[in-house]
């Protein structure tokens, strides 16, 4: 048995050469460039996965360490359940650490590996690793801190919501863009012109679209009360469906279900600029008094906002995409910046429970701020005076905040 294995090992480098294409190998060079094999090849199970991955590390061939360019690459071979060796990958030399992650494995198979150093016309194989199977873990302990901190933030959101439900008074500061909603709707009523609500160009799998819909719920309630017309063009069928439900519910809640019509929310096209062309057309033809641009916007932000500006509408813009915010700031009357977009519906609702959730958000901000201060101060002291203890704090903190 052992001798067989030995023989196989001896022959392997050559069999590898024979069966693999020599595309990257210069065959004109007749002198064989013999290199030493890599050593200490270690295969370990990848931690905290579902049992699909084994990580390999090795110490490079001595020739690679001494002469640059002698070893061209390392070839990774895999043996599954005592089958023949399969070439898995070539790993380039001279870049990064010597390691390879073998993925898409099965928990019920047994794997063993060896790594070969490849010169221009020679392959030197290492010894094989001990046979092993990848393991499955049920908890990702790498993410324990993420879990804990998310739990604290999520928990405080819940806590404040419950507190609010019990009747604790909660203070939330004024948000200028949202104070303007009533006024903007009122203006449209006075002028007898419609209100245009643009929910961005992404589908329901974008949180910004969800934020836009939650705001739509509040806005359309005000609109139903004032008995103004709302028009909402969408670029996704699902958003149209959800938008209809939202507006309809608002009209029902206002006691005017008869005033609602499906024509208020329509679909145009999924195509970004096709949608923009259509919305621009709607703007100049219907001349809405108020335009809401809330959700996920890309290059079209300025096209829409400038056209809205041109027709003289009051515009309230908001998105979580920092690159588009300056265009809204330039061309809209009020802009919801990032977090304010997500907070808007809670704020507009005025319900204590919803406001409570905003308080919970602040707890998260406080945690982030404290972590930033402690981290920065500790690392500064640590660097400046080389205090071991401070270094430890920093290492720990950045471990806590690492999400991998």
């Amino acid at each position, binding site marked *: 048995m052992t001798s067989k294995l030995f023989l196989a090992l001896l022959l392997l480098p050559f069999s590898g050469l024979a069966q693999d294409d020599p595309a990257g190998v210069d065959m004109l060079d007749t002198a064989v460039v013999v290199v030493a094999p890599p050593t200490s090849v270690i295969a370990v199970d990848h931690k905290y996965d579902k049992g699909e991955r084994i990580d390999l590390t090795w110490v490079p061939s001595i020739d690679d360490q001494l002469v640059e360019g002698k070893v061209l690459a390392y070839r990774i071979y895999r043996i599954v359940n005592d089958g023949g060796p399969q070439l898995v990958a070539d790993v380039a030399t001279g870049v990064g650490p010597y390691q390879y992650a073998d993925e898409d494995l099965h928990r019920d198979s047994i794997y063993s590996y060896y790594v070969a150093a490849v010169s221009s016309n020679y392959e030197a194989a290492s010894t094989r690793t001990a046979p092993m199977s990848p393991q499955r873990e049920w908890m990702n302990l790498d993410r324990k801190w993420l879990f804990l901190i*998310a739990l604290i933030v999520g928990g405080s959101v819940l806590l404040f919501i419950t507190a609010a439900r019990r009747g604790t008074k909660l203070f939330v500061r004024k948000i200028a863009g949202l104070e303007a909603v009533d006024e903007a709707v009122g203006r449209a009523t006075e002028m007898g012109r419609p209100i245009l609500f643009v929910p961005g160009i992404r589908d329901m*799998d974008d949180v910004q679209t969800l934020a836009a819909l939650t705001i739509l719920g509040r806005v359309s309630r005000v609109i139903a009360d004032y008995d103004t017309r709302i028009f909402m063009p969408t670029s996704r069928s699902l958003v149209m469906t959800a938008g209809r439900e939202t507006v309809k519910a608002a009209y029902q809640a206002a006691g005017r279900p008869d005033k609602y019509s499906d024509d208020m929310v329509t679909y145009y096209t999924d195509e970004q600029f*096709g949608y923009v062309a259509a919305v621009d*057309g709607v703007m100049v033809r219907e001349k809405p008094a108020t335009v809401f641009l809330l959700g996920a916007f890309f290059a079209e932000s300025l096209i829409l906002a400038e056209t809205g500006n041109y027709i003289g509408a009051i515009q309230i813009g908001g998105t979580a995409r*920092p690159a588009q915010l300056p265009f809204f700031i330039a061309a809209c009357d009020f802009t919801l910046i990032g977090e304010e977009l997500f907070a808007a519906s809670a704020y507009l609702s005025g319900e204590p429970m919803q406001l409570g959730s905003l308080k919970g958000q602040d707890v998260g901000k406080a945690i982030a*701020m404290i*972590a930033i201060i402690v981290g920065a101060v500790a690392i500064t002291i640590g660097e400046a005076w080389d205090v071991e203890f401070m270094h430890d704090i920093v290492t720990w*903190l950045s471990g806590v905040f690492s999400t991998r």
Partner: protein
Amino acid sequence: MEAFFEHFRLWLAAFLTLGIFSFLYKDNPWYKLTEAIFVGISAGYWFVVLFWDNFHGKFWVGAGEYSINWVVAKLTGAQAPPPPDSSIDFMLWVGAFLGLLMLLRLVPKIGWISRWPLAFIVGSTGGLWLINYFASNVMVQAQATMVPLFSSAFGTGFDQNADAVIGALIIFLGTFSGLVYFFFSKAHTGVFGGTARVGVFFLMITFGASFGYTVMSRMSLLIGRIDYLLGDWLGMIK
């Protein structure tokens, strides 16, 4: 015939291009025509792409075809297809089932069932992004801000050091005061209000930078279109 198509294509693209540009002057029938073509063609385009990529490519190939063949074989007593291999995923039926429920909207009496897939979508979007956003926006950014305010690694000369120290300090102060601005629990008055105002300053610089950063690249698009009109179409420029 081919020559005719060559001319036709050039004129068609030019006609559409000018139609869109005419909107800059004002809304007009030419623009309305272009818009109508754009909406109709692109809506059709996306449905076809969705149909072949998502419905056919993902559902039909992944589960639908096999299952239906299997049922048909069982019903007709023919030989059943071979057992499914790893490319078949019956879970995809969940998506198709929810999609069908969505279509129940068309039946007014039981239209309310379409709220189930809607709830499913909202629940999964919310659940999926909650941790994702929290990890990559909150945790990673907070971690990245834990940098030394001054350090020997910055360099030995005073001026290099000063640059780096100021830079680090600005990042630290900017992030901190920016967060203060977003605080909802406290009115923007006193020291707190002052810090929030500093935060607004930083946000404004950020927006200014984004503006300057994006604006320039927007101009090159126009060059491409004008080159099409004057070059490819009219041959006035090389």
